[in-house]
């Protein structure tokens, strides 16, 4: 059971990362990220009041303790966060490159006007 959960988690990381990386930063992806964040926050809050519930879910998944489940979830979130942040960074870098290039070429003399 544990190995299945692990495979599912790893697959989830890759699928979600790829999906969020491909689409870039449009409104739908932003919405998906916010929904995921909301779910995570609600689960985290509930786990404070009902720690046994979390452990029961974990036991059902074959992970053992509830804290382990939270840890796995945190690792997945971290990777998704890294992937999306990297993607946003790349977009920002591309924009910055184009802007710098425009400035550089506009400031230089035009090649056709040289003697």
């Amino acid at each position, binding site marked *: 059971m544990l190995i299945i959960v692990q495979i599912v988690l790893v697959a989830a990381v890759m699928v979600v990362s790829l999906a969020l990386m491909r689409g870039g930063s449009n409104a739908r992806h932003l919405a998906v990220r916010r929904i995921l964040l909301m779910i995570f926050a609600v689960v985290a809050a509930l786990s404070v009041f009902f720690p046994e519930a979390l452990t029961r879910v974990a036991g059902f998944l074959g992970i053992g303790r509830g804290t382990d489940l939270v840890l796995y979830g945190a690792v997945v979130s971290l990777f998704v966060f890294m992937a999306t942040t990297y993607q946003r960074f790349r977009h920002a870098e591309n924009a910055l490159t184009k802007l*710098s290039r425009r400035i550089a*070429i506009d400031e230089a003399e035009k090649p056709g006007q040289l003697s």
Partner: protein
Amino acid sequence: MSRTWIVIPMYNEATVVGSVIEGLRKQFPYVVCVDDGSTDGSQEKARAAGAVVVQHPINLGQGAALQTGIEFALQDPELECIVTFDADGQHRVDDAKAMVERVKSGEAEIILGSRFLDDRTKLSPAKRLVLKTAAIQSRLATGMNLTDAHNGLRAFNPRVASNIHLTQNRMAHASELVNQLARLKPKYAEHPVEIIYTDYSKSKGQSLLNSVNIVAELFFK
């Protein structure tokens, strides 16, 4: 009159870039130096040597500088050929001249320099292995039979130039260029060139560890 533009990406090369440009301008009057945010006065040296300097406001990387130089040259309506050339003096002007002749003759749309077509270039075994591996990888990925995928000396015509859009700002631009050529399918050929490894170019050039960066940048684009 037709023009050949030499594009030189430059970042903190004040000690050598002047003599490199002077050597070039005996054969090629049109040299554009893309300064990638140098802080050592390279710009003045390049201007004094007679190059047009296009200045990035911030440091972006060699790939970004090459693309800027290409776009600058493409503004010239009389453009006939673009040559990319390194600022550290490791390329020979004679090689560039022969490559331009081959492009102008219509033999190919792009001529790529290769240090492995003759035995002029002396390489350490480790560097040779890394470059050969890169060439094999590039051939498997693109189907283009190039012996030296990471050579900075290239000559190409405006049609090829206008279809090159480098987005890899830092080190992976050479591989990206080959990938784009594979899609564009121009008439291409390789030309034997000598890479002159001086102490200076060795200290400035890509270390072998940099191949790790190239692979990482290609993988996470």
